[in-house]
Each structure stands twice: as C-alpha cells, then as structure tokens.
C-alpha cells in the first residue's frame, strides 16, 4: 500500500524532473552555441582576411644589371629617354638565347611596367649614374608575383594559365640565379592607387582618410559638445527641446547612404562644392557622427554629480562659469571617448562617400582637403571590384591596415575610459 502511493507522486515527479533538467541543459547549450557561433564567425572573418592578405606585404622583385648607356641619354631632356629600352636590354642580356618577337615580348612581360619609372626617377635624382652599370631590384609583374606566392598553379594546362611554360621556366632560372626574390613591399605603403597591382599602394587613400577625418573631427566635436551642453544644462523643457531630442535619436538610426544623398543634393548640387573632395566627405561624415558624439557627451555631462555644480554656483560662479570651469573638464574624458568611437565609425564608413564621388580612380596623394581623393574603405571597395588576382591580397592587406587603425582607436578610447573614469 505504502509503496504504491510513493510511486504515484515521487516517481512521477522524478520522471518529469529528469525531463526538465534535460531541457535546462539543452537550453543552456543553445546559449553557449550562440556565443560560440558569433565568436567563430569573427574568427573565420579575421583568419580568412589575414590568410589572404599577409602575402601582400611582400613583393617579388627581379635583380637587373642595368647599363645606363651614355649614348642613349640626352642630358637636357632626361624625360625623353627610352627607359623601356634599358629594361628590355637588361632582360635580354639575362636570357641571350631568347629569339623571336613573341618570345621576347613574353620575356619583357615578366617585368612590371612600373620599372621604367623607377629608372627614370633614379636618373632624375642622380644623373651621375649615366654611363655606369647598376644592379637594381625592380618589381616583377603581378602574374610572376602570383606564381611565386603559389596562386598560379603549375599543374594547369598552359592555355588556362596567365603565364606560359617558357615564362615559368625563365622565372625558375631567375630564382636559381638568386635574381628573383620576395622582398618587403614598400610600394604598398608609399604609393597611391594604380591599375597595376604591383604598383598600387594605400598611401593616397590613407592620406585622404586623414584629411576627411580631420574635417569631421574639427566640425563634429565642437558642435556635438555645444549641443550636448545646451540640451543638458540650458534647454528649457518645451516642445522645441523635445523636437531636438527626437531628431537626434532618429538621426542616429538613419541609414548612412541617405546622408550621402543629402551630401550629393545639397553640398555638391546646391553649394557647388568640389566632387571627390575630403572636405565634402568630412561634412557628410560630420552629419553622421554628430548623434553619436551628442549622445556620448550628454551621458558624460549627466555623470558629473550635481553637488559640484551646486558648489560652484554657491560660491558665486555664474552658470556658464560653473560649466566651463568645473563641469566640462570633468566630463571631458567621457566626451573624448565618445568622439573617438564616433571617429572610428566615420573611418570605416563607405556608402555615403560613394554618393559624393569619392570612388574616382585617383593616383596622386591628395595635398589638401579640396583635392580629389579617396579613403581607405572606398579603396578597399575599388580593389575588391578589380579582376586581377593580385588585387585580392592587396584588398585583404588594406583591410588589415584599416582594422589596425580601428582597433588602435578603440584601444585608445578604452584606455581613456579606464584612466579617467571616476566613480562619484
């Protein structure tokens, strides 16, 4: 009798309990899996970018013995010299057995078309080398570069390859002679954009980003802080203040491309500002980052305890004096943190800048805020669209540079917060 009663209540519950605990464990596992999944995505993203990109920091170069023949040079006009012939002669002297027009052409293709300009620059810098023979490392063509980095498979049939069998055999000979090596790619950091992957660099885009961010910072920080101070300290509670607040919250959620449309319609078409200029880019990004800075600055102002304000007012300071002498200095670290985070967003932003023409192909490094230029994320977009295989690794490398900038900016923000955060 007694055993039967126990079975009905306790056992039933125990069966149910086991089921409930199983559910509990499953639920917890789902949660862990979700966290794990997002971190895995991040890992895959970073690893694939790094795996694709690290090779771009190296560039294949060929050692040539260039004879600067005095007969070729007209001292008065160093630009008109046929530098191409110098490169071709040196290539031929490496492989004297190559005969026939098409073979020769294939041979010349191993060298980057930019080698000519390097020689020209050398002569321009020091005309004393005319008449001598110099050993010079010159960049190889991007196809050779890809072969050296293993992106062109030798097993594919000749027709499907960008390099034919003869070219590959020449490359192998050069490698055996130690005339073809992978070296650190300085061009990537010192050059502007180019159609040739081996000559393309990120300096133009980086400088453009710098100008754009400078404009953004100069405009958005003062305006953002002023707005925050007004809304927190002065604004009366009325319809107008409510309208401003609703507006700021909404602006924070407007798609960035809409700001680009505004820039195109207002700054370019109505005010007639120059296309592709960092000035206009900075203005558009200012509109975008303002809400971020305002919201962060207001939070920073709110966190200053009222006792400080009251103490200042109590010893006879005016409201403005209390703010400028006491509250602003205490709120400044928080404001700066918010500004840096806003700047990091602006640095990574692409879409609105496409609208105002910052996608143009620009070779020169910009010299001022009105010069046509591009920015790092747009450069990444442009390279990602290029068909050459060699641009894939350069795109990834540019992404690594961009991420490095972003991470260091965020690290500075975190550091500022840790260092100056005060608990009242």
């Amino acid at each position, binding site marked *: 009798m007694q055993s039967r009663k126990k079975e009905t209540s306790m056992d039933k519950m125990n069966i149910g309990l086991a089921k409930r605990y199983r559910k509990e464990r499953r639920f917890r596992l789902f949660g862990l899996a979700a966290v794990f999944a997002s971190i895995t995505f991040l890992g895959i993203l970073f690893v694939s970018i790094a795996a694709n990109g690290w090779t771009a920091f190296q560039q294949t170069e060929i050692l040539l013995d260039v004879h600067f023949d005095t007969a070729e040079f007209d001292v008065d006009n160093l630009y008109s010299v046929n530098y191409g012939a110098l490169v071709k002669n040196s290539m031929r002297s490496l492989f004297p057995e190559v005969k026939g027009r098409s073979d020769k052409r294939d041979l010349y293709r191993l060298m980057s078309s930019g080698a000519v300009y390097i020689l020209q620059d050398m002569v321009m810098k020091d005309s004393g080398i005319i008449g001598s023979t110099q050993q010079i490392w010159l960049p190889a063509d991007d196809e050779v570069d890809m072969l050296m980095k293993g992106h062109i498979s030798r097993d594919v049939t000749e027709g499907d390859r960008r390099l034919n069998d003869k070219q590959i055999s020449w490359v192998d000979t050069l490698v055996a002679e130690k005339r073809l090596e992978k070296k650190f790619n300085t061009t990537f950091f010192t050059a502007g954009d180019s159609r040739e992957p081996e000559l393309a660099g990120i300096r133009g885009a980086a400088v453009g980003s710098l100008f754009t961010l400078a404009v953004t910072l100069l405009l958005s920080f003062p305006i953002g802080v002023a707005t925050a101070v007004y809304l927190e300290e002065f604004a009366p509670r009325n319809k107008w203040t409510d309208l401003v607040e609703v507006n700021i919250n909404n602006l924070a959620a407007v*798609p960035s491309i809409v700001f680009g449309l505004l820039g195109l319609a207002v700054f370019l078409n109505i005010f007639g500002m120059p296309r592709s200029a960092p000035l206009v880019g900075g203005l558009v990004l200012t509109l975008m980052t303002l809400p971020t800075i305002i919201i962060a600055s207001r939070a920073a102002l709110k966190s200053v305890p009222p006792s400080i304000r009251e103490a200042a007012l109590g010893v006879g300071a005016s409201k403005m004096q209390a703010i400028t002498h006491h509250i602003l200095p205490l709120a400044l670290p928080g404001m700066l943190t918010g500004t840096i985070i806003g700047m990091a967003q602006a640095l990574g932003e692409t879409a609105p800048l496409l609208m105002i023409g910052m996608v143009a192909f620009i070779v020169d490094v910009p010299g001022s805020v009105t010069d046509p230029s591009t920015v790092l994320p747009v450069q990444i977009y442009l390279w990602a669209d290029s068909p050459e295989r060699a641009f894939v690794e350069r795109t990834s490398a540019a992404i690594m540079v961009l991420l490095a900038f972003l991470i260091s900016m965020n690290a500075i923000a975190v550091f500022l917060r840790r260092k100056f955060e005060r608990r009242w």
Partner: protein
Amino acid sequence: MSPSLFLIVLLGMASYVYMQGKRRAFRLASSESDSTKLHSRPGYYGMLTALWCFLPALLVFSFWMMFSGSVLTTLALRTLPDTMQNIPPNQLNLLINDLHNLIAGHVAAKDIDPVLQLAAEQYLGMERISRISLAVVMFAVALFFSSLIYRRITPRLRARNHVERIVQTGLMICSGLAVLITIGIVVSVMFESIRFFQQVPVTDFLFGLKWSPQMAMREDQAGSSGSFGAIPIMAGTFMISGIALSVAVPIGLMSAIYLSEYAPPRVRAWAKPVMEILAGVPTVVYGFFAALVVAPFIRNSGELLGLDVSSESALAAGLVMGVMIIPFISSLSDDVITAVPQAMRDGSYGLGATKSETIKNVIIPAALPGIVGGVLLAASRAIGETMIVVMAAGLSANLTANPLQAVTTVTVQIVTLLVGDQEFDSPKTLVAFALGLLLFLVTLVLNVIALYVVRKYREEYE
C-alpha cells in the same frame, strides 16, 4: 590670397583685440577710485571685444563664400554671345561645367573655345576684384565693431553677461543643427523625388512589377521608356533583411541570455567585448568577406547538393548581414534582460522553476518590449545597410522567393544609379532619390515604432 588666409588673419586680429580690451579694463580698474569696481573680470571685456570683432566678419565671410561662386558664374555667362546663352538648361549645365574646368585649368590648351576662354578670364578677373572687396569689407566690419565695443568699455559695462548671452546663443544654434539636418535630408530628397514623380507616376513607382531604369536616347528607340516599378527591389530588400534577421535574432538573443543569465562573470567580461568587435568591423570588410569566402562556399555546397545557386545569391549577403547585426540584438537584449529585477527571478525559483523555465516564462515576457524594439532597430539597420549588398548581392531585379537566386536591394540600386556620371534631369538619376526617400521613410517608421513599443509597453518595476 586664399580665403582661408583671411580667416587666419581675422583670428589673429581677434586675439590682438582681446588683449587690447583686457588691458583697457585693467587700466580702468587701476585708475578709478576703489569705490567703482569692474563689473566683470578683465578677461570678459577682452572676450567681448574679440567676439564682436570676429563674429560679424565671419558672417560676412560665410555669405560671400556661399554666394560668390554662383553670382560670378552668372556674370561670366552674360559675357557670352546670345546664341550660347539661350540654350536648354541641360546644355547650359554642360557649358557651366566647361567654364569651371577652364577656370580651374583642367583643360588642355589646344581644345579651348576662344569665347569661353574670354568668359573664363572675365571670371578670374572678377573673382580677384570680389576677393579684394571681401577683404576690405570683412576687415572694415571687424574694425568697426571692435572699436565700438572698445570705446564702450567702462567699469559698469556688464561684459560677462554679454559674453555669456552670446555663447549661450551659439550653443542653442548648434543644437538646432540636428533639426536642420533632418529638414535638409527630407527637403533635398523630397525635392528630387517630386521631380521624378512629375515624369513617372507615383503609382507606377510604388506598385510597378518591373524594374529596368533606362531612358531612351531617342523617341523611336526599341524598348524606349524604362520601367520604374519598385516592387522587385523592395522584395529583394525584405528578403535579404529577412534572412539576416533569421540568422541574427536567434543567435543574438540566445547569446544575450547565455551571457546575462548563465555565463560566469569572467566569461562574460571576456565574451561581451569580443562580440562587440563584430559591430565595429566596417561593412565594406563584411562585403568583401561575403563576396570572397561566403558566396563561393554557398555555391559550392549548393552544387554538391545538386542545387543551382547564383554566385550573387541573396543567401550569402543575408547571412553575412545577419552576422553583422548579431551584436545589435545581443547588446540591446542584454540591457533589457539585466534590467529585469532579481526579485522576479527569485520568485520563480521559489516556486520550483528551473533556470530555463524562469527565462522562458518570466524574464523574456518581462523584457519583450525591449527585445522587440531591438529587433525593429536591427531590421531598420538591415534595410539601410549598403556595402554588404553592393559587394555581394546582384544587380538584376528578380521578383523571386528563392534565396539561392540573385536579387537586388534599394541601397544597391541607389549606389549603381548615382555612382559615375549623372544627369539631374533624367528619371534614371532622379529615381535614386525616390528610392532614398522610400528608404528614409521605411527606416523612420521602423524606428518610431521601436521607440513607441519600448516606451508604451515597458514594464515599470519599483
């Protein structure tokens, strides 16, 4: 002499005037007898003089910057012969473009029209005159106002109050800028959209099923007029956003629950910032990742299963976009979940519920308004997201429900229509603004609903 130089000179002048004003206040304070003290500290007198030196001149300067270009262009065009002046507006725009290129010296010497060259020279001459007159007017204004204030400096002048009023007005103007930006967005986008709707009826745009935004060069051209039906691209936008949300909502919500309810503090302190990194990665990076890694992966696995997958499938773009918005959902949900009071959890445990039962039956219902608001914000983010879809989604406007096919989105179309050369009288360009307006309105409505839901249905505890 460049205009920016004027500003620098003006700044220098203002700081000089500041010192003079301050010195005068000091002098007054020392010369007067002790009974009349200065009303404000001497610095305020200097500040007041400097502000009156700087601000009116700055106003003159900005007006000149805004209007001189267009005035000068009109004047230069007047010098052209009548035959060149009386041409249709779009050709006139081209002419103006040529003129500006000439002025900037962007044209090779051999193909210059002598008449235009003359106009350009006129322009440059007038620009020189206008700059000189600007400098004269600007500095005269600065001098006039600063000397006026300088003379009026007396111990009884309430300089501090004046300065503070000016600064406060400045602060107010800055805060009004946010409203101005919104108005600017609405007006500029609306203006071009209205021009578009004058050429293409609104109903054709909103309910049309075919999207091919070309305009015929000639009337009799085959397939002459393009069609501007926004339904296919709206469908594409919602499909990609839907895929993104169906990835992001479960993962984001579950990780928020795990991190706030289960994870030990050490794991939480470590995993939360790592997930925040996902939000900080620029979208162009996600786009590249989607095009380079995810899209080929999906196509290859589709081929293994015998499916025909487009290389620009909606699935690839949607998946990557989902990853991008995970942190939005997780951090917003995390905030509302931690805001649920501990007493409610304790009550549920006291009744014998397990942790997961408490979460499902107590915490989520309590936090639901916040979670829904977060999801809506994430949805508006997904709809407005540009770079991922530009790089990974297609261009062809297919009206399809198959996520393995290529679809296009509103933002992709805006970018493709507006990048490159534009003519601002063709529907092909103007439709981009109509799409922008649509995008702005949809996201605005989503945001407003999100804020409303959060405010209206928020459970207030204590």
